């Protein structure tokens, strides 16, 4: 009996030993910085001097403000820009990814090749080089406008530096990187039993009917998963806006994403406390929206438990 406990302890010890690298990483590189940033969010902190406790002032400036600490209008604007980006680009991207995934799910000869080709934008997409390319494509005298002027005799606006259109070019860039949800959709499509389609064909269902009555319901957990993941990552978009806007959300803050403004506040204006507060507000917003999505999905997502 005694020997057994000792052995159990020793076994546990060794498993803890194996866990140490991960635990160490978690405590030192995740938990501690998070707790510290929570503390900083209640302070005024410029990196080089010790933080000064200011209580709820950072949050007050974001949402209310008064004569002494006026409301930060650029904060609200950055939130609205980001929300618009998320709610337009994510659905478009998912529809596009699903469409391509359905096409890629056929049994054609070169299909692995096509799949690779369609995935390439995603591999390149987050990079600075693509953002620079995008700038050249949509600039006032960029590639697109040269074509529009030359072939169609139009007088197009400077897409990237016009506040009406700048955000849409970023959405287009996001939609173009449909590769990772596409791959996940493709895996989901392969899981749908062929018998469903065979049986429905016998009953006389056409392609469209099959798509809406079989493919979509069977795929609903995957759609839901992709929706949540894409939403979270869209909220955190940074690189493209940083490069395309020249690092300042220009023109007119129309591409001032939340995380870009957070970065400018923290590193540009030296308000790390405020930036930390913004990070926590973003966490709460993403958390709340994800929870809402989960709740709303209840009746729409079928896990095929076969009742």
């Amino acid at each position: 009996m005694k020997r057994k406990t000792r052995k159990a302890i020793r076994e546990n010890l060794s498993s803890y030993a194996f866990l140490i690298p991960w635990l160490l990483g978690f405590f030192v590189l995740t938990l501690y910085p998070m707790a510290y940033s929570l503390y900083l969010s209640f302070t005024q902190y410029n990196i080089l001097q010790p933080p000064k406790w200011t209580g709820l002032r950072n949050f007050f400036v974001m949402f209310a403000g008064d004569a002494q600490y006026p409301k930060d209008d650029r904060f609200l604007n950055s939130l609205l820009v980001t929300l618009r980006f998320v709610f337009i680009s994510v659905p478009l991207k998912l529809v596009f990814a699903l469409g391509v995934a359905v096409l890629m799910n056929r049994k054609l000869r070169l299909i692995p090749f096509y799949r690779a080709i369609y995935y390439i934008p995603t591999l390149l997409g987050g990079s600075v080089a693509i953002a620079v390319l995008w700038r050249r494509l949509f600039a006032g005298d960029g590639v697109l406008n040269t074509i529009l002027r030359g072939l169609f005799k139009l007088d197009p606006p400077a897409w990237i530096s016009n506040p009406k259109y700048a955000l849409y070019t970023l959405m287009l860039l996001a939609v173009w990187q449909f590769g990772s949800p596409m791959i996940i959709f493709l895996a989901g499509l392969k899981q749908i039993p062929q018998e469903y389609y065979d049986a429905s064909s016998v009953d006389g269902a056409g392609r469209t009917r099959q798509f809406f009555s079989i493919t979509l319901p069977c795929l609903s957990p995957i759609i839901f998963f992709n929706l949540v993941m894409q939403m979270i990552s869209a909220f955190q978009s940074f690189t493209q806006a940083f490069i395309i806007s020249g690092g300042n959300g220009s023109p007119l803050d129309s591409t001032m994403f939340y995380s870009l403004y957070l970065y400018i506040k923290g590193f540009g204006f030296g308000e790390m406390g405020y930036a930390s507060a913004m990070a926590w507000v973003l966490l709460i917003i993403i958390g709340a929206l994800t929870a809402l999505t989960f709740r709303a999905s209840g009746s729409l997502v079928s896990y095929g438990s076969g009742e």
Partner: protein
Amino acid sequence: MRKFGLVLLTLAMGASMLFGQGVTVRWAYWGGEARIKKSQAAIDLFRAANPSISVNPEISGGAGDHFTKVDTQLAGGAGPDIIQMGGNIGDYVKKGVLLPLDKYAGTILNTAVIDPAAIQGGTFDGKLYGISTGVTMPALVYNKSLIQRAGAPLPALSMTYAEFRAYLVALKAKLPTGVYPMQDIGASSSGTTPFGYWTGYNGTKLYVADPKSTQVKAADAQKYLELFKDYRDNKLIPPADIAAGFAETNADTSAIIAGKVAIGFLYTNQLGGYQAATKDELALMEFPGAVATKALWQNASQYYTVNKETKNPEATVKLVDFLVNSPEAAKVLGLDRGASASSTARTAALEGVDQKVLDYLKIAGAHTSKPTPNLPNDTEFNSSFFLLYQLVAFGNYTTAKGGQQIADLIVRMINK
């Protein structure tokens, strides 16, 4: 296991033999390709004279990235030894991260040959924190070749605002479609210098340090916005969306190098970099109205400052002295960081673009006053000013509303 330890030990010994000798000075600065090449040439000269000191440049493309990086390094206790500073040097003195250089003055740092005004500029509360890299001043730059190709007369070096507007109108008539007489220099993502000049021209100082205040009222800021609205309405500068396509942070992102405008704005030390980016010939002219108001100014282009935590203060200061005072260094560095404030460095022979800058400094230098100190929270002011300016340029705000908000912004930056 023992074998592994042995290998590690050998590696460590090898590394210490490789890197252990001499010291390394880390030099952080920002700049484009021209500056990187010039700086490396100066480093090579320094290394030849001081083989025991290695120099590691840490380069950022722009001032914004530079300070982001340096701030983070300083906070982590791993700051570079030499930190290139701009007009924000006062902020860093206040933060207490810079080393006072007084105790090296007269020994390894020859301050006697540096112009007293330049020493004064780097002195705060009686202590010397920064050594001026050289003098620079704001200027308008024009594309001489482009104007000649269009068959228009070249601008005069000095003009009044009325003459300047008439010139822009005349130039507009000659330029091909799609090319505008001047870039919208009223504000850019990189700074508010033209506004700073205009406040001096207008006789209303942007910032007075004692007591902390501004002389700029809403009506003044509105007048400034109306000046550029008039240019914009008459197509003397590009429409807002075209202008916004150029970040104007350096030659690569400027409208004048892209061939979209004939006149732009820069600091004289930037002319070399701009000229290197185009085959057209560039030339300098003054801001309008400078002769009568002496509203131009000269200031240190940048400062060399030393990190308080540096482990090798002597080697670091030695490099600073070399960069600032040595004629050999001055020859390879040119005027890229400003026209030298050191009498020994000025003995170096300069040519080409550098000579053009010296000529301009000589004439425009007579139309200057003492520079006003930077508005506190400079970075935030520039960013917010640019946004307000764009709101007016795109027609979202009236000039009256924009003027009011700019005046409020200035007060907020002072009281922050």
